[in-house]
């Protein structure tokens, strides 16, 4: 939870600096920026280029720094095709150092605020190269790497705004926690992918009592936590209510200092269990019997960065709805196709019933298929008289077609297809 500690300490410093800034002023400051920064779909595959795998819905907050580093070509998007971090927030006047950590990358500016004149660095460079730019104009700067755009090598710099004083939601004293789950909800972590996690974190900050249902319809059965990801304020009691059988709650990870032990006994519908979460941070948990089908959940304790409002926003993880149904339908069809010849051969070779056999007598069968009479040739031709003119004509036609194709291929298609290599 290094990120959280950083956030806390930075926030602590900022609170000290702000001194007696009132909650009203803080709230007004926070209004300027949305909780989860809105990039207008830039990080999805709907914008130009591919989906950005290393953008998890969070904007790394580096406000207050004079210099910020963005690595170009970090491991992401199926290779060394990412900017690290993909989204970063800086204060106006901050110099951002772009440092190449792998080969063949550049920075092409897609969009920037009016009045800004960032031209990027369109020349393709290799590991070891670096380039810096000082961002003065407030707003969102979107950029990408031209050779790897289609793989999702896209990023953004947000200048200004951010959590400059306001935690929002529950007030300025609340620590902020990013809804960052790593790959917890994907099949890369322990167990299967969590189909009922659609990238959004349900925001329940401010409520004293929050309910999470255990065993909701999800993941191909009654194997889900509902909601899969929820954000609550510190001190909130979360009630886990069993709505189907054979589930438990096992803690996978929790912030340092938190002492949540989950509910490891396997229980049935009607059972409930509650825990009050005090320590801010991200808690992940799962149901042991159904881990492999993706029965996993998370609880975020603390306000969203940059104000209250909604949760972490899309994290780039996508659910695959109905995949089980299609897989079984496909497997069924394949099985049927493979069995078809066996069924057909059995059907053809089945014994003829006695009743049918008696109807066709031996005499009738012989009469139905008479032998053909042997024919004598009417005239016999000698070798010299034999003139297969038809065959000759066929050969001549084939020959002409061949010559025509040859002329077309070489003289029209090849020689006429200039320019040609001449040396």
């Amino acid at each position, binding site marked *: 939870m290094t990120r959280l500690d950083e956030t806390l300490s930075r926030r602590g410093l900022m609170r000290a600096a702000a001194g007696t800034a009132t909650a009203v002023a803080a709230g007004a400051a926070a209004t300027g920026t949305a909780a989860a920064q809105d990039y207008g779909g830039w990080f999805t595959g709907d914008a130009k280029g591919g989906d950005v795998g290393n953008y998890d819905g969070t904007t790394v907050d580096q406000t207050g720094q004079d210099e910020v580093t963005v690595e170009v070509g970090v491991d992401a998007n199926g290779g060394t095709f990412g900017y690290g971090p993909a989204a970063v927030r800086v204060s106006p006047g901050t110099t951002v150092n772009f440092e190449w950590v792998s080969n063949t990358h550049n920075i092409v500016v897609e969009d920037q605020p009016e009045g800004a004149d960032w031209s990027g660095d369109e020349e393709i460079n290799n590991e070891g190269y670096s380039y810096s730019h000082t961002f003065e104009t407030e707003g969102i700067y979107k950029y990408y790497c031209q*050779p*790897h755009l289609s793989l999702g090598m896209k990023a953004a710099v947000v200048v200004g705004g951010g959590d400059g004083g306001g935690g929002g939601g529950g007030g300025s004293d609340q620590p902020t926690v990013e809804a960052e789950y790593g790959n917890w909800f994907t099949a890369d972590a322990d167990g299967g992918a969590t189909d009922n996690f659609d990238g959004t974190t349900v925001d329940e900050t401010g409520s004293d009592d929050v309910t999470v249902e255990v065993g909701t319809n999800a993941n191909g059965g009654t194997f889900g936590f509902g909601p899969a990801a929820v954000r609550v304020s510190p001190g909130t009691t979360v009630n886990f209510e069993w709505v189907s059988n054979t589930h438990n709650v096992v803690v996978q990870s929790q912030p340092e200092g938190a002492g949540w032990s989950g509910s490891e006994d396997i229980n049935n519908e009607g059972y409930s269990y509650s825990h009050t979460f005090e320590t801010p941070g991200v808690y992940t948990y799962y149901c042991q019997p159904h881990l492999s089908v993706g029965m996993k959940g998370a609880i975020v304790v603390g306000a969203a960065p940059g104000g209250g409002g909604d949760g972490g926003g899309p994290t780039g993880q996508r659910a695959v709805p109905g995949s089980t149904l299609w897989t079984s339908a496909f497997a069924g069809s394949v099985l049927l196709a493979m069995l078809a010849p066996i069924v057909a051969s059995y059907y053809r070779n089945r014994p003829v019933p006695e009743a049918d056999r008696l109807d066709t007598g031996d005499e009738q069968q012989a009469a139905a298929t008479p032998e053909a009479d042997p024919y004598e040739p009417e005239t016999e031709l000698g070798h010299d008289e034999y003139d297969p003119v038809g*065959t000759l004509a066929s050969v001549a036609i084939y*020959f002409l077609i061949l010559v025509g194709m*040859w002329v077309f291929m070489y003289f029209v298609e090849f020689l006429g297809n*200039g*320019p040609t*290599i*001449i*040396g």
Partner: protein
Amino acid sequence: MEIHRFEKLWLVAAFVLIAAFIATIVYGSLVAGVSMVSDDGGTVDPDDITASENFREPGVYQAGDGEYDVYVEARQFAFVPGTNSPIRVPANTEVTFYITSSDVTHGFDLVGTNVNTMVIPGQVAQLTVEFDETGTHHIVCHEYCGAAHHDMEGTVEVVAQENFDTEEVTEA
């Protein structure tokens, strides 16, 4: 052995066709001046392509009167130059491409023309082309080279000699 006269006829025709095919290749090579990509380019160190004499910093160079050399480096997933900035060459001059790869095997194909070669790491593909007409040719990589292979393309711009900016080239 007696052979039917029709059979003799189509045997002769078949041999004439084979002779004509061979004559065509000879004609293409000697009269039309078509040649193949050779290994004249030599080899380079793929980790540092400009280390040896065989390859220069990627770019367009003037090699003589009406002769230009273009050094192209292909890498995942770009032609340098070509992708980021078009390769600009004058029309009606002899342009020799020297192409090599610094990572994996690529392809270099001017779409719709006979200018087409494989680009192998460490090996310089050398090919001379004369562009008769001005216009734009598109370069595609036609050897699967990785996840964004489909995105690896570039441009060759053929401009009239009087419009060609000699500032763009380095004197040989």
